[in-house]
């Protein structure tokens, strides 16, 4: 009954979202980025579970909450292999891998202090210029940034 033991490790969800397959070292970044500390619904956070695909993984289960598109885009920046499971009435009604949009608006801060986006009250815009390894380029100053340089707003 190894399967049921695995399931017991985290409580079952009636309605809500499970973010699965988050690399362990990125788990708490995802938690803080999504500002899950401010959510009042019940949350289960698990880490360092074994994963065949990525070694060690983290899982986040949020009851009665469904992530918006821009939140999923943010997750894609730091945990591109994560999957989203939408649960309704204890059943997975939707399961999908995260994909990063080609254009990211208002998500990343440009690391060029001389960029107009850091000096005007305006929304930042980035283009994904390479996916593996990730590189995004500022729409305004054209500075490219790799994933370790990315600061999420």
């Amino acid at each position, binding site marked *: 009954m190894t399967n049921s033991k695995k399931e017991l490790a985290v409580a079952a969800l009636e309605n809500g979202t499970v973010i699965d397959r988050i690399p362990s070292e990125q788990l708490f970044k995802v938690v803080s980025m999504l500002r899950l500390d401010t959510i009042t619904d019940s949350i289960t956070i698990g880490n360092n579970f074994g994963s065949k695909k990525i070694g060690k993984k983290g899982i986040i289960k949020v009851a009665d909450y469904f992530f918006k598109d821009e939140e999923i885009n943010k997750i894609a920046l730091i945990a591109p292999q994560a999957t989203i499971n939408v649960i309704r009435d204890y059943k997975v009604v939707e399961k999908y891998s995260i994909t990063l949009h080609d254009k990211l608006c208002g998500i990343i801060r440009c690391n*060029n202090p*001389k*960029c107009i*986006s850091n000096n005007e009250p305006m929304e930042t815009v980035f283009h994904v210029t390479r996916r593996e390894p990730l590189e995004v380029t500022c*729409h305004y100053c*054209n500075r490219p940034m790799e994933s370790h340089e990315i600061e999420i707003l």
Partner: protein
Amino acid sequence: MKKESLVSINDISKEEIIDLLEKAKSFEENPNRRVLEGKVIATLFFEPSTRTRLSFETAVNRLGGRIIGFSDAATSSSSKGESLKDTIMMVSNYVDLIIMRHYLEGAARYASEVSSVPIINAGDGANQHPSQTMLDLYSIYKTQGTLENLNITMVGDLKYGRTVHSLLQAMSHFHPTFHFVAPDELKMPQEYKIFCDEHNIPYYEHREFSEEVINQADILYMTRVQRERFTDLMEYERVKNVYILHNSMLAGSKPNLRVLHPLPRVNEIAYDVDDNPKAYYFQQAKNGLFARQAIICKVLGIDVD
């Protein structure tokens, strides 16, 4: 013709570049035309640049347009803390075209998104300066009769030099061969070498500024090696005289070779080169006038023959 801003040389196609070159040629034959009669054009220089501003303002004047603007942010409302957006919104109420230079990178792109009239980027920090690139292209086209299959040798500061990066990208349409001559600290950045690889453009890197390199060039594009770019001043002292062009070094060069420089020069081209017919940097600056006349007409959708 459609009205469109010109923010980056990468925004325009090969065909548009060729069209601009043809128009520049036509303006050189006849620079005084009153096609901007009744139009008001703003030159907003948030950072002083006398050379570029005078060139643009001469272009407007020779086309019969009128100019408003400022030549230094200290005399504009941005010194009172007004945002760029508000300045652009206000000025675009008054004029038909805004020509702007700004110390912040991406400023012209942002301005083009909030403005109701076209924007010409006259330089945004270390980012883009498309009219400089157009005058470089026009100078090459005019002196070589073509832009195709040329040997372009770039010398000096290839790391921070915005003009060489834009020229490299613009020339990529025309099957060039590049030679990059620079000290290790100022080498052509990796991203531009990747760009060359992706476009199947051959390039060769040299640390030595030798006659062998000069003798195969069609265009020698010189840039300034600035002391403040070096982290190691010993290194600067060692290389500062290595990338200077003297007249004697041109003895075995090709007859069609021309020496270009975006100016201002400090000491990277010795004064004895000036009298050599292959020295082209002063005419190059003059070509800026015609290239800018062509750009102004393009963004305003004015057709000229």
